[in-house]
């Protein structure tokens, strides 16, 4: 191949790679504008203040009430408890894989974690309905197992693979010299891991947690199936609650295109988009810091 042809080939390739990069950014911007446009339609006929302060979500009543607080709180509750469950588990597992486990165990664990990531959410939801829900009901002796906590447990499982693999990467990228220095000062293996390696990897681990939160707050199927979906302002995690995602998924099919309810769901989508955007942005910020 002549050098000229080579150069043409390279520039074509370069163009395609550039174009895909630009396209992705364009898609995100277009999605945002699309959500924003339909939300503006909604706020034309429904006051933003009511939307943000009403404690009730009654979309098919006369007149309808669209208060996002119960949904927002539902999402926050479920996410918060899911993170409380999965962060210690995930970081512990990552520490074990990165620092302690012998290599054959490491490989087995890693492949199991990959399998965990590959379980479809509808399967987890089904397990939640027939098995975990009744179990949670029995343990806490509450009226129903269809509550936020059941959802949190399942979501924690869904976020675990993300948290484990990213924090494991962060732990492994801590230079070996740090550990050597710690050992040289007479630190035990545990002290080196806990006092030196973990703090050095902290921003990567925070990024892992952030991405885990993003995964959990955007998950739909599981929460729709197991959390009971009552649009109440939840007073405890052991009560049924309704999340932003489940609301969109279960109500979209019924709305009239161009109706108020239709646009209301787009506004819910916009809120969700903004939340995940902020979380991912923070995660990126931390990841960037850990790379330096």
């Amino acid at each position, binding site marked *: 191949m002549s050098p000229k042809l080579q150069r043409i080939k390279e520039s074509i390739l370069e163009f395609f790679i550039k174009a895909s990069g630009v396209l992705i950014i364009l898609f995100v911007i277009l999605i945002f504008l699309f959500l924003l446009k339909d939300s503006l339609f909604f706020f034309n006929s429904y006051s933003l203040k009511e939307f943000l302060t009403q404690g009730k979500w009654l979309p098919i*009543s006369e007149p309808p009430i669209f208060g996002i607080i119960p949904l927002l709180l539902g999402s926050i509750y479920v996410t918060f408890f899911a993170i409380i469950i999965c962060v210690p588990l995930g970081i512990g597992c990552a520490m074990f894989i990165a620092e302690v486990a012998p290599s054959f165990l490491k490989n087995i664990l890693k492949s199991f974690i990959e399998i965990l990531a590959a379980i479809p959410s509808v399967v987890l939801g089904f397990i939640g309905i*027939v098995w975990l829900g*009744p179990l949670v*009901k029995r343990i806490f002796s509450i*009226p129903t*197992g269809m509550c936020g906590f059941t959802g949190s447990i399942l979501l924690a499982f869904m976020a675990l693979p993300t948290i484990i693999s990213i924090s494991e990467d962060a732990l492994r990228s801590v230079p070996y010299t740090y550990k050597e220095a710690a050992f040289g000062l007479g630190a035990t293996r545990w002290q080196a891991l806990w006092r030196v390696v973990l703090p050095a990897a902290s921003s990567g681990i925070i990024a892992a947690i952030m991405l885990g939160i993003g995964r959990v707050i955007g998950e739909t199927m599981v929460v729709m199936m197991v959390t009971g*979906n009552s*649009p109440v302002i939840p007073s405890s995690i052991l009560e049924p609650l309704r999340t932003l995602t489940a609301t969109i998924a279960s109500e979209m099919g019924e709305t009239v295109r161009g109706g108020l309810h239709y646009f209301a769901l787009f506004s819910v989508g916009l809120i969700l988009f903004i939340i995940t955007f902020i979380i991912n942005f923070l995660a990126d910020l931390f990841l960037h810091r850990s790379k330096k």
Partner: protein
Amino acid sequence: MKTCLFIIIFLISCTWFSDIQEPSGFIQVKGSDTLVNAAQKLAEEFMKEYPYIFVAVTGGGSGVGIASLINKTTDIATASRRIKDKEKKIAKKWKVIPYEIIIGFDGVAIIVNKKNPIEKLTIRQLHDIYTGKIKNWNQLGGYDSSIVALSREVSSGTHIYFKERVVQLDKRENKEEFSSDVLLLSSNQAIVEEVASNPQAIGYVGMGYLSPRVKALAISDRGDYFLPTPQNVIEKKYPLSRPLFMYTNGEPRGIVKIFIDFVLNEKGQKQVEEVGFVPLEK
């Protein structure tokens, strides 16, 4: 060139012959979301038998269907409720005479766990449960445990039927809502699962979803209690049953009549039954 001509002649002869031998045309069916699956299945079976009649089915809701019938943008409107007087008046103004055809029945069954000693409830008691006035089973003669009331999502036609019939007791001026403690589950199946595993739960599902794992309650409006059996639904004894309708403009004629006849005959009724509704006669 020759083959081209031949094909054209062939195509023309096709349509010409089909005009003579088979009825052909286009039927628009629009309306109830509850019935959209049934209508779709009916249309598919119908088109197998009459390949030259094309039936298009759209949902949108019973109200949308009836409005389209009045606007003359649909040939058949499906509805899971009877046409309102107000709609009849508007139809008269536009010189449309809605012709009502009952194509089947649907019963809404109230189910509880098998361990629950309750066997029967009145509509009034159901109303109190779903509006949050009765919160414990012992108020109804059951065990001392709180009630977990399950409902379908707002996208469900049955949700709206239940809301009008039980929560608002069929009174149009009644603005009562489901209590916000009521759980909204995304499918009939999810309700059956929760009721089967939770002795404190109560829920409603279409009759097609009854299973031996749950117990259906006998329901009374005024007077006797009736179980949700096809027989009780047909005889209008079971209070939570509703006919399912199709409306046409005037008596059905031409291809619309062929379709309606198909819906009402054995084959069509079998489809109605297969989607979980009660056929006209059993």
